[in-house]
């Protein structure tokens, strides 16, 4: 079984900003250890084989819009919900910490 510890899973969960309760942590650690064990078969793959150009999206021409200035397309007009929206900017109260600026 892969040597991944509870502490390691807790650290990763912190990194991912996902709270894991103590009751679930042991089971989750065992499951992830098993999964990582399964991934071990990739160790024999030569990393030099990686070639982004082979990904389908890299080999397909995408449609680009014309490079022209235009009004941004919005699903909802900001004027319908923002108190003040001017020159494509939302006006907000000055923060107290910026009073003297």
């Amino acid at each position, binding site marked *: 079984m892969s040597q*991944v510890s509870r502490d390691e*899973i807790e650290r*990763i*969960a*912190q*990194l*991912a*900003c*996902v*709270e*894991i*309760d103590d009751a*679930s942590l042991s089971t*989750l650690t065992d*499951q*992830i250890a*098993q*999964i*990582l064990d*399964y*991934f071990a*078969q*990739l*160790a024999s*793959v*030569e*990393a*030099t*084989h*990686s*070639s*982004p150009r*082979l*990904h*389908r*999206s890299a*080999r*397909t*021409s*995408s*449609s*680009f*819009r014309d490079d022209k200035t235009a009004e941004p397309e919005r*699903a*909802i007009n900001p004027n319908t919900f923002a108190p003040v929206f001017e020159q494509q900017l939302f006006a907000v109260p000055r923060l107290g910490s910026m009073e003297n600026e």
Partner: protein
Amino acid sequence: MSAAQTARRAIQQITKVEQAGLNAVIGFDSEVLLHQANVLDRDKKSGALAGLAVGIKDNICTLEYPTTCASRILEGYISPYEATAITRLKQAGALIACKTNLDEFGMGSSTEHSVFGRTQHPEQASRVPGGSSGGSAALVAAGAVEAALGSETGGSVRQPAAFCGVVGIKPTYGRVSRYGLVAFGSSLDQIGVFGRSVQMAADVLCTISGRDRFDATCADRDPLQLGDCLDDLSDLTIGVPAEYLTDDLDAGVRAASNNAIHQLRDAGATIRDVSLPHTQIAIATYYVIAPAEASANLARFDGVRYGLRIGGDNGLVGDMYRATRGRGFGAEVRRRIIVGTYVLSAGYYDAYYGKALAARTLITQDFDDVFADGVDLLFTPTTPTTAFDAGEKTADPLSMYLSDLFAVATNLAGLPAISVPIARSRGLPVGGQLIAPAFQEDRMIQTARVLERVVDQGAEAR
């Protein structure tokens, strides 16, 4: 039949199957459906799909219904925009019938990981319909709608199609716009189609396909158009990869696949044994890359802009992120986010993600080599088994992942594939899949039409 008549029939059928406990539908309002139909009839709108009621997997944004991804973290979320695929369906006269159940955020192979409860198999309630698009597959199989949209990241259209005995199409990556499809694995995700027949599924695919300026990964191509039906397959070479007909394959699936291969041969195709030597590392490759991408894509669900928010009253935004995501996501989603974060983290990136990218290149090359060697299409069983029991694999995530073995290589390579019901085994549907080179859906679908015609879908495979 007017659109209102079609809508009323769909309402009746959806209500009937849901009252019987199917649990395939998580967003539905008969008044919303009838209103769409009445507008269509009033305006005398016509189109390729006029009056067709279509179920929509609930990770595709719609204006008519909330988009929840079957997750607590998006419960009740109303999208301010609709997916391009939805816009095109409506332009063709289709009716957005309902939102269908799924494994949360598309992560699962059984439609058991939904905050709304599991979807039943349409024929045997104790079994799963497959996933993650199980709601759409079950609803089409139950006869409540003629067609439905699903999505694939790793087999999530083809596998439930095979389990439920309906047709499921996964298009080439870039064939259909991903605008409005909630992202799971952005280099893999594609909207797919379910239908009770190849023709029905193909008609819907043609409608939703084509270039889209809102999706930079959508290919700069016209919408798919299909040629004339084939009378026979005499100009076709179909490869059968040895790695998909292993000794430990379920006997019924093997028998059904062998029968289908005989039928394809009798229809004129040249059958050739081929090899895709890196098939065995496809699952490991997929389950490194997909969770890695998911960990990035699901970072946006943090309680700030939309969806569930827990905590934050103490002014600590980090606490709010962790509590919202910890309690808003289900167990499988949390697991995949942790796996994805792990394989991308410092010290592990090269050993896992770097290797998986290299493996993906090898898997893609396998397909390219076979197609370059004169093979037009590949045929394989869609799944290694028929529909399994509910609860059978939920305690063992790895066993659930392994059930995707015949599907994920196609997703990694970005190729199109279609699953067609080919027989039954111990009373349950068996699916066979055709895989084509990129953007050759036309030939793939024409061949699938012939396959559908020559097999006996209801026969018990022996």
